[in-house]
């Protein structure tokens, strides 16, 4: 019996239940076709329930079948993961206030901390922060200019100049 795999199966079950619950609220007026807009939601929801149940069954009877050993370490490096997660979520929260370039640079700096921490080489000295900030900025800024200036695609800026 594999607890993690059981959880994955249970997650699939929950998704199936959620879809089925959502399907209740969808109208069924079918017109000529005999099936309405609620047909596929029901079908997908029930199928996910069946898949989830089968996954749980597999997990509890020796584990998922014909499965490759996952690559990499057995245990996750959650400290590194937290750094990267903070980077991505901070980016989502800040992008409209401090602009694309600065927000992405920040995300870059945090993500680099995460990967270095996962490799066991976390460097929190001010110099490392500055170097990574400079590298992140030198990637984010040209990308921003390319999209806003050349392609005229809207990305949020700190100023309305289109350059920062």
């Amino acid at each position, binding site marked *: 019996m594999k607890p993690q795999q059981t959880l994955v199966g249970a997650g699939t079950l929950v998704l199936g239940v959620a879809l089925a619950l959502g399907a209740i609220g969808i109208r069924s007026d079918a017109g000529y076709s005999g099936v309405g807009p609620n047909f596929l939601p029901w079908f997908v929801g029930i199928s996910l329930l069946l898949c989830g149940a089968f996954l749980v069954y597999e997990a509890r009877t020796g584990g998922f079948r014909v499965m490759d050993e996952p690559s990499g370490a057995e245990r996750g490096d959650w400290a590194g993961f937290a750094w990267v997660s903070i980077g991505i979520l901070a980016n989502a929260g800040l992008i409209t206030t401090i602009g694309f370039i600065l927000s*992405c640079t920040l995300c870059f700096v945090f*993500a680099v901390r995460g990967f270095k921490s996962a490799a066991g080489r976390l460097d929190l000295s001010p110099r490392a922060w500055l170097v990574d900030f400079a590298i992140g900025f030198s990637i984010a800024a040209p990308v921003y200019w390319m999209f806003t200036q050349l*392609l005229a695609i809207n990305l*949020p800026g700190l100023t309305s100049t289109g350059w920062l």
Partner: protein
Amino acid sequence: MDIWNQLLQGFMTAGTPINLMWALLGCTIGTAIGVLPGIGPATAVAMLLPITLKVEPTASMIFFAGIYYGAMYGGSTTSILLNTPGESASMVTAMEGNRMAKNGRAGAALATSAIGSFVAGTIATVVVTFCAPLVAAYAIKLGPPEYFLLMVLAFCTVSAVLGKSTVRGLTALFIGLAMGLVGIDQISGQARYTAGVPELLDGLEVVLIAVGLFAVGEALYNVLYEGRTVESENPMSKVHMTREEWKRSWPAWIRATFIGIPFGTIPAGGSEIPTFLSYATEKKLSKHQSEFGTTGAIEGVAGPEAANNAAITATLIPLLTLGIPTSNTTAILLGAFQNYGIQPGPQLFEKNSALVWALIASLYIGNVMLLILNLPLIGLWVKLLKVPKSYLYAGILIFATVGVYGMRQSAFDLVLLYAIGLLGVVMRRFDFPTAPVVVGMILGPLAEAQMRNALSIGEGSWTIFVQRPGSIVLLAIVLAVLLLPRLMKLRKPKS
């Protein structure tokens, strides 16, 4: 000859300086993407989808196609030189290519894979040129029931047949279909699964799902589990093949091309099967058995690489003529077409013939560009392998933000992106295939519409699917694809 005229027209469109520039840019980015571990053509095309908002369709399709097959050229460089294969299609190349590189023959391996990719890509493009219009002419006769069954066939092969575990493949497919359900129903106009969030009325963006699963998922997986994995690099040698190596490569390229093309063409995509088949064929036919698995046999690189490229090019046939994607990348290309309000399918060759033929012509041009980019300039690409992993993945996150935010200007999407990334980590850790998610999400709404249209024709009766000769044949194929492998498995233990 109608085809010649149209192809010539295509070359004229694709040959304008601006389109040539897009092709070159696409091939260059594609090669870079292929070389860089951790990011594939599907992600790259997805991240660049916002350009469809501003760039005209012909130019951007030429650009995306360049990325698509450019990545295949670049991918082999990584799998030969690094001891960690990138995408699954180049895993086979890695088996022999790696051994050759370890024995100081990296150059020959790189040469045979680049030239083999060119040969196979070009032959496959010729096949696309002549077959696609024929398929389109035939496909125009298909009605909703046949289309629906074709899509079901694509779903079955991509989820249940190609993967290792049927239940995990199906789970992935249904997750994809569930994602496709979010938004306004095409036929009745009813909102589904939007939970009152206005952003969800338009549905989930393809960019979001693809970039979340592949780019963010890959980055998170890497930081979680592979932080301490050390990659070693094989020594480079001069890119050159001896007369003997040419003699051994040629037949392998040609054989592999014709193994690859049919697998790309039928809606049963994926380039894993043809590459493995080609490898097995070469291993069986080779006069140098002792080199396989020891010092590295050049046929074992030449064949799979060519098969891979042939299959990749041929996947454009079902995409352009039927509107059916059979891989991650073609699914996203379909999304790109949809952004322009263009629905690939048999009508494409009539309504947008200029675009189609320019795209096909650009494949010929792109293959030549890629040969030049990959043979003399290989040294430049190899330098990309020296980019530290931390900067590589952190940089990918910046591009992921551009792709997702650029598409809809919504910070909400960036939070969703993270959630999809987590889903990607779980799927990767527990060996769920990702292609069914993307194909299901994009093809799901189309399949649903075809199904309901078909049922309308049949006045609500499901027998419509067994009343037409075309649909009966397709139904038989679907059943065969699902049942035959299982029946064969049942028979094996007895014999």
